[in-house]
C-alpha cells in the first residue's frame, strides 16, 4: 500500500465515523448507503469478477433479514404470538435483551445464508450464462412468494422487528444502526480487498474469461465458485439483518425479497460504477444513492418509471460504468502502459 492510498483510506474512515455527527439529519440515508455499497460489492464478486450475473443474491439478503428478526424475537418471546399482530406492544425487549438478540441474530443471519449458498451452490452454479441469471431470478421471486405464505414469520401482513429500546433519555437508534452498517461495510471491504489481492481473484477472472479452459488448466472451478458465493451470501445476510432492524418492518415481497428494488439496484449499482473493479461498486452505489435520494422527490410517484428508464439507459449506453470510462480516459492511472505515438495517431484518426 503506498502513501497516497493510506491517506485516502484514513480520510474515508474518518469521514465514515464522523458522518452521522456532521449530517445528523441523514443518519438513516447514510446507513442505507452503507447497505447498498455492501450489496453492490458482494454482487460484483459474482457478476463482475466471476461473470455469473446473479439476480439471486437478494435471496441471502432477505433470508438474513428474516433470520435476524426471528432470532431476536424468538430468543425471548414466543415468535408465533409476536407475528400474529401487535406483538411489539405486548412484549417489550429490555436494552440487554435487544442487543443480545441483535448480536446473536446477526451471527445467525450471516452464517445461515452462507451455508444455504454452499448447499444450493453446487446445483445452481452448474448453470451458465443466462440460464444462471433466470434461475437465480426465479429463486429470489420464489423465496419471496413462499415466505409470504408462511404464518410464523408473519405471512402476508408482515413482521414488525423489535423496536429500539430507550436507554434513559438517550436517543441513539440512528447512530446504532449507522455504526452497525458502517462496521459491516468496512469488514466487507477489507474481506473483499483481501480476496482480490490473492490468487482467488485470478481464479474468478479465469472462470469469467473461459471456464472450460480454466478447468482444463486444473482449477477446480466449482469449488471456487461456491466459496465466492458463500462469501457474498455471508455479507448479504449481515446487510439484510441490519436493514431489517433499520426499516423496522419486514414484508416478504416489498422489503425482504424485494427483487424489483434491491435485487435490481445491486446489479445496476455495480454496472454503473464499473463491474470487475474494487472501487466501481462503491462509487456506483454512492452515485446511485445520491441520484435516487436527490431526484426521487422530483419524480414523485414516477420513481419506478425513472428507474426503468435509468436501467435501459445505463445498460445500453453505459455498460462499462464510471470506472471503465475513467480507465479509457486515463489509462496511465490504472497501470496501463500507453504508447504516446500510438495515442496521437488514434486522436488524429478520429
Amino acid at each position, binding site marked *: 500500500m503506498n502513501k497516497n492510498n493510506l491517506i485516502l483510506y484514513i480520510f474515508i474512515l474518518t469521514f465514515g465515523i464522523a458522518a452521522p455527527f456532521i449530517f445528523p439529519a441523514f443518519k438513516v440515508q447514510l446507513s442505507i448507503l452503507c447497505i447498498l455499497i455492501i450489496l453492490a460489492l458482494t454482487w460484483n464478486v459474482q457478476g463482475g469478477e466471476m461473470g455469473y450475473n446473479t439476480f439471486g443474491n437478494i435471496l441471502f439478503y432477505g433470508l438474513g433479514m428474516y433470520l435476524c428478526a426471528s432470532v431476536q424475537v424468538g430468543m425471548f418471546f414466543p415468535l408465533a404470538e409476536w407475528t400474529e399482530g401487535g406483538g411489539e406492544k405486548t412484549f417489550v425487549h429490555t436494552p440487554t435483551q435487544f442487543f443480545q438478540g441483535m448480536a446473536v441474530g446477526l451471527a445467525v443471519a450471516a452464517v445461515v445464508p452462507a451455508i444455504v449458498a454452499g448447499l444450493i451452490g453446487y446445483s445452481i452454479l452448474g448453470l451458465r450464462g443466462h440460464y444462471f441469471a433466470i434461475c437465480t431470478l426465479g429463486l429470489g421471486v420464489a423465496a419471496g*412468494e413462499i415466505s409470504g405464505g408462511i404464518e410464523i414469520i408473519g405471512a402476508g401482513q408482515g413482521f414488525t422487528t423489535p423496536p429500539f429500546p430507550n436507554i434513559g433519555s438517550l436517543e441513539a437508534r440512528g447512530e446504532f444502526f449507522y455504526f452497525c452498517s458502517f462496521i459491516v461495510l468496512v469488514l466487507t471491504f477489507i474481506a473483499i480487498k483481501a480476496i482480490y489481492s490473492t490468487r482467488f481473484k485470478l481464479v474468478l477472472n479465469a472462470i469469467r474469461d473461459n471456464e472450460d479452459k480454466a478447468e482444463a488448466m486444473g482449477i477446480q472451478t466449482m469449488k471456487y465458485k461456491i466459496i465466492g458465493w458463500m462469501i457474498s451470501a455471508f455479507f448479504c445476510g449481515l446487510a439484510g439483518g441490519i436493514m431489517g432492524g433499520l426499516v423496522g418492518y419486514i414484508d416478504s415481497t416489498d422489503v425482504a425479497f424485494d427483487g424489483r428494488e434491491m435485487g435490481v439496484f445491486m446489479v445496476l449499482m455495480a454496472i454503473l460504477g464499473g463491474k470487475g473493479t474494487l472501487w466501481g461498486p462503491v462509487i456506483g452505489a454512492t452515485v446511485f444513492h445520491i441520484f435516487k435520494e436527490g431526484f426521487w422527490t422530483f419524480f414523485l410517484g414516477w420513481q419506478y418509471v425513472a428507474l426503468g428508464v435509468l436501467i435501459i439507459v445505463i445498460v*445500453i449506453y453505459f455498460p462499462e460504468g464510471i470506472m471503465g470510462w475513467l480507465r479509457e480516459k486515463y489509462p496511465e492511472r490504472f497501470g496501463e502502459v500507453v504508447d504516446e505515438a500510438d495515442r496521437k495517431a488514434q486522436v488524429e484518426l478520429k
Partner: protein
Amino acid sequence: MDFLIFQVPMLTVQATLDGVLLGILFALIAYGMALQWGVMNIINIAQGDLVILGGYIAYFMYLYGIHPAWGVIVSPIIMYFVGVIIYKLVINKVVDRDLFISILATFGISILFMQLMNFAFGADVVLANSGYGTTMLFDNSVTLPNSKIFSAFISIVFAIGLVIYMKKSKLGRAIRATAQNARAAKILGVDTEKVYAATFGINAALCGVAGALISITFTIHPYMGLPYTIRSFMIVIVAGLGNLPGVAMSGMGLGMFEEFADYILGTEFRIGSVFLLLVLILVYRRFKLSKKREYLK
C-alpha cells in the same frame, strides 16, 4: 392445509380440464418467446408485461361497451406496433450483444411498463366480462366457463395460423432464414433489421392475443406480468426452441401442474411453486447434462 382434492375426486377432473385450457394459453405466449429467442437470441423479461398490456386493451373495449372478444382482433394489431416501437427504441441496440445485457434491458422495460400501467389503469384487479356463461359437466360437479373453451379455441386458431404463415409467406421464410443464419440471410438480400422488427412485433401481437384472452377468462393486474414471463421461459426450455408440439404439450403440463399445486398447496403458494419449478427444472437439466460433461447453452 386440507387436501380437499383427495376427498372430492371430481376435483381432479376439474383441475385437469382447467389446467389444459390454461396451458394452451401459456403455450401461445411461450410460442412468441421461442420465436424471438430463436430469431434474435433475446430473452424478453417484458413478455409478461406485454401480455398484461394486451389484456388492458381488451378490458378498455369492454369498458366502452364493445364486446371484449373483439379484443382478440384489435389487441394484436395495436400490440404489433407497440412491439415494433420497443424494438426501434431499445431492442435493436442490444440484439447482437451479451445476453445478460438484453435480460437487464428488458427487465428495465418490464419495470417501466408495470409502473406506467399502474398509473394509467390503476392497481385494481380487473376482468372483462364476456357473458358467455358456464357449462356444467358430470352432474354439475365440474364447472367449465365457456370463456375458457373460447380462449383455448382462439389460441389454437392463432397458433395454427402463425405456423402456416411462417411456412408459406415471404416474411415467414425470411424470419426462418434469419433464425438459421443471420449473416448468410443478410448476404442473400434479407433485410435482417426489418425481420427483427417484424419478429418482435409478431411476438408482441401474440402476447396481445393471449392478454385479451386472459382478461376475458381470468383477471389482470399491472404487476402480474413476471409470472407469465417465467412460465413461457420454462415452457421454452423444457420444449426446446422450434419444437412446436413440445411447446403445446409442456404448456398444458405446466397448466395442470399449477392447478394441482393450487388445490394441494393452497393458492398462496401458486406463484411460488411456479418459480420453484423453474429452478428445479433447470437444476435437473444441469445434472443430466453434467453427466455428459456438458452444460446448458
